[in-house]
Structures are given as C-alpha cells and as structure tokens.
C-alpha cells in the first residue's frame, strides 16, 4: 500500500526526480539539436526518461508487496 510512509516517500522522491528530468536545466542540455538513437535528442530524452520514471514507479509499487 501507499499507506506505508516509506513507499509514499519513495514515490515523492520520484516526483522530485521527474521534476528534475522534465525541466530546465536538464531540458536545455538536450535542446541543442542532434539526435539520439535515430530520434531528435530532446524527444528521445523526454520519452526515454518518462518511460524510465514509469518503470521506477512500477518498481516501487510492485516491490512493496513483499
């Protein structure tokens, strides 16, 4: 459950991590043009870090069951 303080705090940490991923200044680093894995670097970064964040959320949530 999200009930447990530790899980809630881990999720809140991921919230902060997400704020960092999706904003200036990190955004500006990937906004210089060029490409990553055949995609524009900004797009690749945002989609990649978004997916990673979702993965981490899943890890925290599903991991708390044991």
């Amino acid at each position: 459950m999200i009930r447990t303080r530790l899980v809630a705090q881990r999720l809140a940490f991921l919230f902060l991590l997400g704020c960092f991923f999706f904003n200036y200044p990190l955004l500006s680093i990937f906004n210089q043009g060029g490409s990553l894995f055949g995609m524009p670097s900004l797009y690749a970064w945002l989609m990649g870090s978004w997916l990673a964040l979702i993965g981490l959320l899943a890890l925290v949530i599903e991991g708390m069951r044991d």
Partner: protein
Amino acid sequence: MLQVWVIVLASFLYLGVLFGIAWYADHRADHGRSLIANPVVYALSLGVYCTTWTFYGSVGRAAANGIGFLPIYLGPTLLFALAGFILYRMIRVAKANRITSIADFVASRYGKSQLLGGLVTVIAVVGVIPYIALQLKAVSNSFTILSSYPEIVMPASAGAVPLFQDSALYVAMILAAFTILFGTRHLDATERHEGMVAAIAVESIVKLVAFLAVGTFVVWGLHGGVADVFARAAEVPEVARRLTRADTSAAYGSWGTLIFLSLFASLLLPRQFQIAVVENVDVKHLDRAVWLFPLYLFLINLFVLPVALAGLLHFPAGTVDADTFVLTLPMAHQQEGLALFVFIGGLSAATGMVIVETIALSTMVCNDLVMPLLLRMRWLGLAEKADLSGLLLEIRRWAIAIILGLGYLYFRVAGEAYALVSIGLISFAAVAQFAPVVIGGLFWKGGTRDGALAGLAIGFVLWAYTLLLPSFAKSGWLPEGFIAHGLFGIELLRPQHLLGLAGLDEITHCLVWSLLANVGAYIGVSLLRVPNAREARQASLFIGGTDLSGHLAWSGSAGVADLLPLASRFLGRERAEDAFMRHARSRGLHSVEELPGDARLVNFAENLLAGAIGSASARAMVSSVVSEEPLGLDEVMNILDEASQVRAYSRELEQKSLELTRATAELRQANERLRELDRMKDDFISTVTHELRTPLTSIRAFSEMLQEDPKTDLEQRSKFLGIIVSETVRLSRLINQILDLAKLESGRAEWTVAAVDVGEVIREAADSLTVLFAEKSVTLDLGGCATGLSVMADRDRLMQVMVNLLSNALKFVPAESGLVKVAARGTISEVRVSVTDNGPGIHVADHEVIFDKFRQGSGNTDVLTDKPQGTGLGLPISRQIVEYFNGRLWVESTPGNGACFIFTLPRHSGDNGPAPLQAGNDNQPGGAQ
C-alpha cells in the same frame, strides 16, 4: 464505403455497444459482482483524461511547436508519483464523508458551506464549458471531413453554417441524450456509476488502439520507421524547427507552467475527480494505477510527434488543419477502414469526456446550486414534499442538457479562434483555481470558509478577465480594442498584459496573476480569524484523517420519525428504509423503530443524504429537523487538537475500567463463595455437635444409671455396658470420620498414589465384610468384576470407598433375601465400578442429598431419632476421594427397585507395573481455595 449513413450507423452501433457494456456492468454491480473492482479498470477509466484534445489536438499542437504537447501528460505522471500524499488522502476523506464531487469536497472541507459549494460549481461549469465545446468541435469536424471522403475538405467556419445544418448541434444533442440515458437512470446514495466506469474503461482501450493503429500505419506504412520520419523531417528546414524548442527562459517557464497546470487539472477537473475519487471502488486500486495510468499516457503519446511530422511533410503548408492529421493521413492514402476506426476512436475520446464531465457537473449543479436555492424558496413548499428523488433526477437531466447547450454556444461563439489545445488550456486554468483551497485544505488547518471564498472568487475573476473574455474578443464578440488597449482603454488593464506584465504566453500570464491573487486571498483572509467550530471539525477530518463522525458532528438529536421521512424524500422510500435497516442491524437492533434518536443516528442520516444531495444541502436539511445545541469553540478545539492523545488516553482508560470490572466480578464471586463456605461451616459444626451429643448423652445416661444403682442385676448391667461400648465405638468412628473429612477438605490428607488393581481392592473389601454379610444372610455377588483393571490411586483410600459402598448397601438390603452385586468394567479411558443392591431404593430428589454431610436418604430414618444406621459421612468422604483421583461417584435408583452406586476412575494406561504419580497435598481439587 464511407457514405454518411455508414458513419452514422457505425457511430450509433458503437454507442449502443457502450450502452450494453454499461448496462451489463450495472447489472453485475447490483448482484454484488462488480466488473470494475480491479486496478486495471481503474487505471483505464482514468484514461478519460485523454479527450479529443489528446486524440486530435496533440498532433495539431506538435505540428505547431514540436514537443510542446507533452507537458500535459508529464504533469499527471508527476501527480501520481505524489499519490500517497494527495490522491490517497482525498479518496480516504471522500469515502469517509460520502463526498460526491469536487464542489462537495471544497464545501465540506470548509464547514459544509453551501455558498462555497455553489461558487465552486459556478467556476467548474463556466470553466469547463470551453472544454466541452472542444469535444463538439472535434467530433463535428471529424464527421464533416470523413463524410466528404474521398475529398479532403476543411469544414467551413462554424459561424458561417446555418444553425440547423451544423453537425455540431446534432452531436451536442445526441451526446446530451446519451449522457442522460447513461448517468441519470436512477439515484444512487453514493453517486457511483459502475456501468459508466466500465464503458469509460472500454472507451479508453478503443481510443488507445485507434491511435496506435494510426501511428503504426504512418510510421511503418508510409515511412520506413521512426528514424526515417525524423530523418526526412530534418531535411526540410520548415519542419525541422519543430525538433527543438526555443531556448529562452520564457519558453522553459511556460513549459514548466504547463506541467504544473496539467498536474492540478488531472486532479481537479470535475471528471477526473469523479473517476479518481468518487468512483474509486477500493483505495488499494490506486497503488497499481500509480504506474499504469502514466503508462497509458505514454503509449497514447508515443506516435504524436511522428504523425505530426508526417502530416507536415505530406500536406502542403496551410491546406489541412494539423488538428485533423490523425484522420486525414489515412484518408489521403485511401485507408477507409482505418479512417472510420480513427473516427470511432475520436468519438470514444469525446463521448467519454462529455459523459463523465457532464454527469459530474450535473451532480454539482443539482446538489450544490439548484437544490439549496430551491429549498430556500419556502413558497415552493419543497421541504414538505414527500418524494424529491424524481425532482433530483429531473434537475440533473436538465443540467446535462443545458451544459451541453452552453458548450455548443461557446463553440459557435469562440470555437474558431483557437486550436483544440488552446481551448482546453482555458479550462485547465479555470480548474487550477481550485488547487489552493483543495491542496491547502488537505494540509493546512487554518483555512476558513471566508478565505476559500475570497481566494476562489478573485482567482475566478482574474481567470475570466485574462483568459475567457479575450477568447470572446478574438472571435469578435467583444470589441477587439479590449485586448489591445485594455478595459475602458486603460493600458494597465490590458487583459493579457495586466499591469504591463509582458513576455509570458497567455496561459502562464493568467496563471501567474490568478493563482497569486487566489493563494494570497485564501491565506490572507483565512488568517483574519481562527476557524470556527465547524471548520475546525472538518479540518481535522480532512487533515488528521480521523473519524470523529459519531462524536462531534451533531450535539443535538432527532428521532427516526423525523429522519427517515427526510431521507425517503431524497432517496425514495425503499432505498431509505433499506439503509436505515442496515444501520439498525449494524447497531445490533432488530428494527428501525428501535434506533435511539442520538447523535450517531443523525450523523448517519446526514451522511446518507450527503450521497444524494451533497454535504452542504444534507447539513441544511438535517438541521431542519434536528434541535441542535451549539458546540462551543473551545470545547471543539480542545478535543480536536488533542484528538489523538485523547483517543489514546481514553482507550487506556477504557482498558483499565474493563480490567477493574473484571476484577470486581471476580471479587464478588470469591466473596459469595466465602459466605457460602462460612454458612456451610456453621451448619457443619452445629450438625457435628448434634451428632456427637447423641451417643454422649446415651453413654452418660447408662453410666449414671449404673453408678446410682449398684444393685442392678448382672444381666441388666451387661446390657447397659454393651450399649455404652457400642455408643463409644460409634462416637470414635464419628470422630475419626470427621477428622478424615476435615483432612480431605483442607487438603492436608496424605496420599500414596500408585497403580492399583481395582479387582483386588474389591475382593479385599468384600473379604473384610464377609462376616457382616453372613450375619445378615445377604448374598454378595462379585461375578461382574473383570480382572487386570488398573487405576492410579491410593490403595487404602480406594479400599475405604469400596467398604463404604458395600456396608452402605448391606445396611439397606433386607435380611435373608438381600443381594448385593459388584461389577467392574474397563473402557480405554476409564474404569467403572458399580455396587447394586435390592434395597428400598432412593427417591430421585435425594440422589444428590445423600452425598451431603450427615444427610441420609429419606428411606432411612432420621439420624436424630430412632436408631441411626450410619454417621452420614461415608458417602461424602467417598465422593471426595473419588473426585480427588479425577473420577465421579453417583447413584442411579428409583424407589422400590434398589440402588446402584457407580464410580469411575481414569484408567491407568500401563496396566502392569506401578507408576508413581506426583500428587501432593497442595493440588487437591476439592480443597479450600
């Protein structure tokens, strides 16, 4: 294939299927087998966040400024990361208080204020209308475009089309009818709609699959994969500029603002609140939705940028509206089936949004706006009407129709001036005004009703001035000069450059001003006074998560006779009676009439009503029948502030008092027992004295006779001496037995416990009595004695029991014809010995009496007169002994048929060989305690 009738038929078929799903889910829910009670359905239903804005508008937004469509989905992802702190608490609070909408939530938090609920409703309705217009525009445009296939023609400006030829009007009417059918079939006390949620979950799947299908077609059907799309886009300079963003602080600022805005919108939009909070079946479902819902958002956005770029590459600039690329790309490549599927996907996105949003809004309009007003109009006499549930449904139906009508009106007035996303953002900014009072309400106890009213009002006014009115002005419904030169031509009042603030886009500009003023007013006005009793109570309900409902909500009282009719009026009689019955049962009562008119009942009734008409109205209605004594502020504050300590303390007290009660009961019992024993001791002493005096008297009398008359003849003398000797024997036997009994009872008797062969003991006892039996010519039959039965006992004591029983029997059988039979049998666990005689028998009433001290059966003569035949102590002693060895001794007899004395003892498992048992003086069961 894509004639108009095909499209219309497909649309209606699809809506019919949805209706079927909803019906089936409702049906299942009625039978207690909920279809939606799992986290995946919950997460999918949250997908109602993705409307035609996402389905059509995102691509348009991406075509205009690249990645700029994305913050709208990053925000909700971040919100769900904060689920433990915000959503989880909101759901808990909403469930505990039967919150039915965001207006209800805010009104309830700040002391169940009707005024506040009304204000939130007005803001929500006005704020969300552009958003509904967006759906109408998207559906009617996509219909117009699809129906002109194979041509790709952009629809004419809505204002130019005559009213009755405007497809958007029909879309609005159909959606209104559909929503009314969907959401207002019956009134539910919890305001939950299982069927609707199931249909929404299905719609979420349909729109996702449709969008992924288009994406797959565009990326792999028209191009050689994602990399190919991006590579081609990079070659065209005009398109390539969408691959990066302006690298200015304003651009990053507005990006961050959009993330922040969508974070709140995904929580505060009436439909999001409805699905995430009100329709939540189990708060545990939130767990998995924390990552499933963001994953859904990720998937539906996966192909947005590639599709936008492909559209830009494919269509000459300015010929096709980028908002329609999702539809026009398949059409341009003759993919009729895919195009129709896309249209259905768009329809899913629109209907899902419209259904949930208008149902949520209609609930708010009915509960927080219309009903409170109607109930205030005394001349309508509503308060006296018997059944208002029909009226409630009627109001909701009209609310749905009117909201969709207003949506259509906005579409006609202002719909053309903006792209889809821009219209939606106006709504986002409106509901963001709820953020301070909702989030503040969850974490800050100091917020008051006045603060919330002030914050919301000023935020709403600034939003309307900086965002809504300019949207009218841009469409020509307000003078153009309003934007360019400000109200009354005052430059400082230019709506999009308020006080000269420049350099921000219009959304950020609106949010900066409105939220700044909103938060400021909320906090500032709240700080003007301390929260009153009611606000403080609600604050602690919302923040502490404590459930104080049965204790402090009402200090007054009202009976079932007032409350049940009240509830019946809003819920219908059957539902109300059902609910009251359940409440009665939960309190262990058998009928509704037995319910006491206490605060608990009043609270129950208020909660029940809150589900149907909102918490503020429910409070008003209940207060009309309750005679409440006002709560003192100090009283409430004291209890609330220390609620947890008080609870812990009272729990401790409760436990202590429980222990005390238990100890008292034990003491009382012990005291009873002591008194009983005392009485028994007195009885015993008086009886013993009596018993001892009888032989003593006779000894003394005969001795005196011998002493006074020395000339008594020898025969007489020896007769007297014989009596004296026998009386002395009797006396000493009596004294021995009394001592014996005293020892047994006090636990000072000495026991030598070993394995004893029962058969042997019986024979020995019989042998010792042979002479006596022979004297009376009584037959002793030992034929029924099995051999090899062993028990753990004291041999001499067991012998005593046997002798007692045999001599007892001997006493009562008639001479010459007397017969005494002894039998011993063994089962696995016990040994059973019976002594049967053919004496006069014992009356049932005496079966227990004979085991009392000095009492003998009525068949025997009174011990005090006539010649006594025994001491009356033999049987009590025997029973003490048998019970000491965990056995039982009793009698079975009917008068005239002899008596059978039976005792059982636990069988010794090792029948051969002694096994000494630890048996001391201190563990005797019958001993004094």
